[in-house]
């Protein structure tokens, strides 16, 4: 196995990472490190490769026909694209929350219990109950749904559905949570709740989120990476990127001159 020594608690290290979809190159030679215990925001105009990068981390790109990944990408020093890596185990370590809330057409309880069940995480019903309750608690949804755990997950409001999806992701106890524009389908109040939740989750999880809202990136992230045309243009502390960007492209994007 291709071991690389972890450098000062970087969770993810990408070196010369390129992705092709068929003939089209979506990601060009990206070098990007993601620190543990932080929220890293990936920003950039549509089609800039930020979601592609995100989906490399849990190998979601494997599902796309004709997708090819080259370069190296490591999680805790272990090559994610090593043929010996079991995708199922990788995805148990790397949770994901999607753009549109996608609860399964099952009860709220079964939605959260789904991951623990397929990974055999609970020895008995009581343990499973504890995982489900704890995850809903952490996702800030427990108070709202504790009396209706048997209701369908799809009966919740959009914001509740998204927090249910976050609960579903953290029930598997991942080390890293990927969020692909988690608030783009939500109204401002639901967005505020989810952002607050992301801020709380930072204590226990490393979070990488793609967002189209620069205010959101500024509010919840510690590090920000700016992508443009499949290339990583700039990465730095969020405050620095937003107040004093090094690259003119970044400056242009965050001041709204394009994008």
């Amino acid at each position, binding site marked *: 196995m291709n071991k690389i020594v972890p450098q000062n608690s970087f969770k993810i290290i990408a070196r010369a990472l390129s992705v092709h979809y068929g003939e089209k190159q979506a990601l060009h030679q990206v070098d990007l490190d993601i620190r543990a215990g932080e929220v890293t925001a990936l920003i950039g105009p549509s089609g800039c490769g930020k979601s592609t990068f995100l989906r490399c981390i849990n190998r979601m790109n494997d599902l796309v026909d004709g997708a090819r990944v080259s370069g190296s990408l490591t999680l805790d020093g272990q090559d994610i694209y090593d043929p010996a890596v079991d995708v199922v185990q*990788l995805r148990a370590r790397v949770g994901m929350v999607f753009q549109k809330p996608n609860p*399964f*057409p099952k009860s709220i309880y079964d939605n959260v219990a789904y991951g623990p069940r397929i990974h055999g995480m609970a020895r008995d019903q009581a343990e499973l109950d504890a995982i489900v309750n704890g995850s809903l608690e952490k996702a800030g949804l427990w108070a709202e749904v504790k009396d209706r755990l048997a209701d369908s997950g*799809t009966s919740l409001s959009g914001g509740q559905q998204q927090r249910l999806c976050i609960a579903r992701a953290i029930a598997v106890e991942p080390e890293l949570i990927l969020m692909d524009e988690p608030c783009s389908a939500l109204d401002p109040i639901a967005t505020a709740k989810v952002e607050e939740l992301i801020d709380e989750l930072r204590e226990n999880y490393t979070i990488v989120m793609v967002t189209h809202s620069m205010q959101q990136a500024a509010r919840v992230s510690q590090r920000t990476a700016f992508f443009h045309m499949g290339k990583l243009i700039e990465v730095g502390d969020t405050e620095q990127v937003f107040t004093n960007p090094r690259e003119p492209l970044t400056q242009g994007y965050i001041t709204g001159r394009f994008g």
Partner: protein
Amino acid sequence: MAALARAFSPLIPTDFMQLLILTAALALLVVFGYASGQRRALAVAGGNPRLLHSLPRYHGHFVALWCGLPALLVITAWLVLEPTLLRLLVTNALPAEMADQPAERLALFYNEIRNVARHGHAATSDVVADAARHYAGLRQTMFMAVGSLALALAMAGVVFARRRVSPDMRARNRVERVVAVFLVASSTVAIFTTIGIVLSLLFETLRFFQFVPVTEFLFGTSWSPQIAMRADQVGSSGAFGAVPLFAGTLLIAGIAMVVAVPLGLLAAVYMAEYAQPRFRSVVKPLLEVLAGIPTVVYGFFAALTVAPFVRDAGAMLGLSVASESALAAGLVMGIMIIPFVSSLSDDVITAVPRSLREGAYGLGATKSETIKQVVLPAALPGIVGSILLAASRAIGETMIVVMAAGLAANLTANPLEAVTTVTTQIVTLLVGDQEFDSPKTLAAFALGLALFVITLGLNAIALSIVNKYREKYD
């Protein structure tokens, strides 16, 4: 016009020719009305169409409709009323001793008159010849009168509508309202046809129940629909208990579902989830070809290939299998309805949103876990719907069972024996010359109605399940 019609008469029947000429004249008038309406609209606007509320062509349509519609209504009414009216006038003019015959004799006699007048048959008597001349004369006069009326109405329509053309006239709205009426009429044709079928089934069924009690039909376990010609004949009393027929139908349809549901579902899962797009684009249409094979072909496949095979296979295992076993018919019917299950299920499985699959994969689910625990439950309402539709198809299927199932109404659950089905019995009851007032014939209508109610019920349940439990993925 009559002269022109006679000129063509060697080729085409005269009365049809006359109608053709009338229609052509009307069509010409309509075209003229359209052109004149359009021109008139431009003229009243001083050549500037922007001053008009509606485009000139809508004014054209408006005039054309006023020209064509009333005339068409008159002609249609005449076509409907002509036979009754003619009959009344001709029979009233008959000599008294002829007119006083019983109704059936009079009808025959009138038929003869008509044949002489319209198809040139030789008249058998002077009375007939006179009446035929009267008939032909009346018919010609009435046609001329109606034709003139229609043409006059058409012309009046043009004049009337042309007068009303003005820049403010809302021609577009009026034309569109007429178009809407046509659309509604077209869409209700199917509904009225269904209602008509149900009513005709219903009335014949009611007549059947005057001969045979409802309870015997619904709960009787003996079916032998013979009606004696003479009272002292052997087996003079028919038995009309439909239970064995419905049991046989359910047995065969059940066997068919046992074949079709697993095969169809597995095929659908493979095609929707595992197959390469290239493979799917070839195999899916091929599977659907199964639905396009004429059922009569399945019928002889069942009767000549599968049934003997099943019988021989049974014989090797030491079982006695009827050569028209329910098993053979059911197996072939099952193959026939595979595409109903697989194609519809494939569609609903494919329609499960990608985001749900990604959600499961993102949690570390394997492909088979994702399919079993997320995709199939999400697609379940549609799958149930497709199964019920296939079931109603299996129950109503006729040709395969006519050829491969038996005629003996055995009440048995043993698939190796011969059973008969509702549809087979309907066919046997109605094949050949029938008297339409014997319970034997009327029984077919009662069976048909029962079958109709069952399949309609299944379809309704299927549709309501699909609609009620469908997850709304916007």
